[in-house]
Structures are given as C-alpha cells and as structure tokens.
C-alpha cells in the first residue's frame, strides 16, 4: 500500500475546514417563512379558581427559517405584542395587563428566539430564549413541521411556569387564584417570507459587508 495517501482523519479535517470556509453553506439561512395571520394562532391556557381558560395573543410577528437539512441556518424569531391579549374576559384581561401580571406599560412585548434547532428522536427541537416581562429563560421548544396542502405548518405546545417570568408575582404567586402552569399552543400556517424581508433586504444592500451575512 502507498503510505503516502492522506489518512481518512486528515481528509475529514480538511473537508470540515473547507466546509466552514465556504460562507454560502455555513451562513446560508434555511428557507424563511412568515405566518399567514388569518390561519395562525398563538394561544395559551391556564387555570383560574378551578377553571381552565384560554387566551390568545392576536398580534405577533414571527419569522421562521427552517429546513431539516439546513439546521445551522435554521432559527425561529417571534415578537408578541402583549396588549393584543384576549382571554374572553375583560376583567381578567385588564388584570393581566397590570404590574403584578404582564405589566404591559413597562414590558409591551415578549420575544422568543430559537437560534439553534436540532433534531431529537421525537422531531425538531428549538433551544429558545423566551423573554417575558424582562426575564429571559432558556426553554426547549419541540415542534412538528408538516406540509399541509402546499403550506408548511408548525405546531408546538410548551408548558411554562408563570413564576419563571414573574407573571402573577407577589400575592398572586401561590396558586389559590391562578395556577402556575400555563400551556402555550402555537399553530403557524406558513408562507414563504417576502423577498424584501430582513435577510434578503440585508443581502441586497450594496453596503452590506460579508461579515454582516445574515444570521437572522
């Protein structure tokens, strides 16, 4: 045998080096999508005085870049405008707006950024930073990704502890009025993001330096 052949390990090393040096593969975003507002929903359900109630946030922006074979370029970014909350009770809505709960005046939005998406045995999982009321918590965001009559559909359900975010603090912290666990249900029917949206726009600007290659 010719011992001058490079070892497989070296080949791999060089290959990885080459891949990482190639910006189009490394930094490219997966295909980007935005939700179709009329068909998408961001809802939650909690318990109050022994009864389950559901609410929705009607006003939110989401941008999802995802392809199972382009995980490094996949990410999910959501901004929720909290005052669009509707829990089918004016009294409850106005209570939730107050300082003890979401404190809309100080924290008008909540954000969700999953910069990393991996594939677990159960399917895709985002490792996301969820920020509510100024408090950020890393959460695991398992979701399903289906194609339904030509549209991609993302569905997810996560359970949050409202006290992780100081929602319902102080005298409301115990569960005598409201339970701590809140189920959040995400249903996004997706359309391709318009070409003019963030990454494309950034890339299209002549001044955009390669270093600013879109991660978001």
């Amino acid at each position, binding site marked *: 045998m010719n011992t001058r052949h490079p070892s497989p390990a070296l080949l791999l090393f060089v290959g990885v080096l080459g891949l990482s040096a190639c910006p189009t593969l490394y930094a490219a975003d997966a295909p980007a999508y935005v939700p179709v507002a009329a068909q998408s929903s961001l809802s939650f359900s909690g318990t109050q*005085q022994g*009864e389950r109630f559901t609410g929705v946030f009607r006003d939110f922006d989401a941008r999802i870049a995802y392809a199972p074979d382009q995980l490094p370029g996949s990410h999910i970014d959501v901004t929720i405008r909290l005052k669009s909350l509707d829990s089918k009770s004016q*009294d409850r809505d106005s209570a939730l707006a107050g300082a003890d709960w979401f404190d809309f005046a100080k924290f008008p939005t909540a954000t969700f950024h999953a910069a990393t998406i991996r594939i677990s045995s159960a399917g895709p999982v985002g490792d996301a930073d969820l920020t509510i009321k100024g408090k950020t918590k890393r959460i695991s965001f398992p979701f399903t990704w289906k194609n339904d009559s030509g549209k991609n559909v993302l569905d997810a359900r996560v359970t949050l502890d409202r006290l992780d975010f100081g929602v319902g603090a102080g*005298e409301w912290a115990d569960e005598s009025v409201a339970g701590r666990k809140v189920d959040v249900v995400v249903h996004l029917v997706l359309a391709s993001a318009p070409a003019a949206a963030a990454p494309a726009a950034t890339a299209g600007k002549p001044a955009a330096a390669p270093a600013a290659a879109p991660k978001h």
Partner: protein
Amino acid sequence: MATATTVPGRWGGLSRLFHWGMLGLFLVIVPLGLYMADLPLSKQKLKLYALHKSIGLTLLALAALRLLWRSTQRRPSLPPMPAWQERAASATHVALYALMFLVPLAGWLFNSAAGFPLQWFGQVNLPALVDANPALKSLAREAHELGAWTLVAFVALHAAAALKHHFIDRDRTLALMTPGVKAPGTGVDP
C-alpha cells in the same frame, strides 16, 4: 291559593329554619356585595367575590329546596285582617320568592357573561350560563343590582309588616314564623 291547605298553628321547624337561615345569609351577602364591588383589584377582592358567589349559589339552592318543601306543607292561617293586607302579604310573598331566584340567577348570568369562573366554596365549578358577552354582562349586572335592591325593599316591607302586626295590631302573624315569640296578649303559641 287553596285555603284547604292552611291550618291553625305555626310554620314547622324546617320552614322556620329555611326562613331565618336564608335571612342570615342575606344579611351577609348584601353588605359583602356592596363592599367588594369598589375594591381595587387584589387577591382579597377575588376571594370576597368568590365568597359572595358561593353564598349566592347556596341561597339559590336553598330557595329551590324551600319552595319544594313549602309545596308539601300546609300553611298556617293568617289571623283576621283587612282583605287588602292579605292581598298585599300574598303579593309580597310572590315577589320575595321570585327575587330569591332571579337575583342569584342574574348574578350567575353576570358572572358568565363576564367570562369569570364560578366555584362553590372552592369545591365545585359550575358551568357558565352563556359565553362571554360584554353587552349582556352590563345588562345582567344591572339586573342583579336592581333585583338585589328590590329584594332588600321587599324584605324590609315584609319585616315591617310582620312587626306592625305584632306590636300594633297585636296579632299572631310574627309568631307564626318566629321561634320564641308568642302571640301578644295571649301568652301562648298561636
């Protein structure tokens, strides 16, 4: 009403228990309702509301049981009095019974239209009568408040009439329902 169902004597023990027990709860629930409504939002406020609703549901259930029980009982005959007084007493009783149902039901409707949970002493949750509905909520709230004040007025009229019969007419009307009260002048039970 068929007079055949009236008898001399007084109301039975269970009837009197319904009467005075419900009055006792009424004397708690009305001031509670007036006090709690203007409180700023707090857990204490929600707990007072929950207590008000629990007592209200209890009164609604007692009203139904009381009406059922009343239908099985023979009513004691009233002492002789002018016909207008008998008619007024009868009309007042109809109004009292109607309001015993209408006021808590309007409260339940108000609570349902407001989209709020309804729990009986933290034990059992009751279903909403309607879906959340802001317009109906204000209407039901008005009905609940107006009904409650009307009930207070009829209770006061009823009590005033009973006291008038006892202290002015000196007949046995009050003694029919009141434990420990004897008909004036006779020193004996009616």
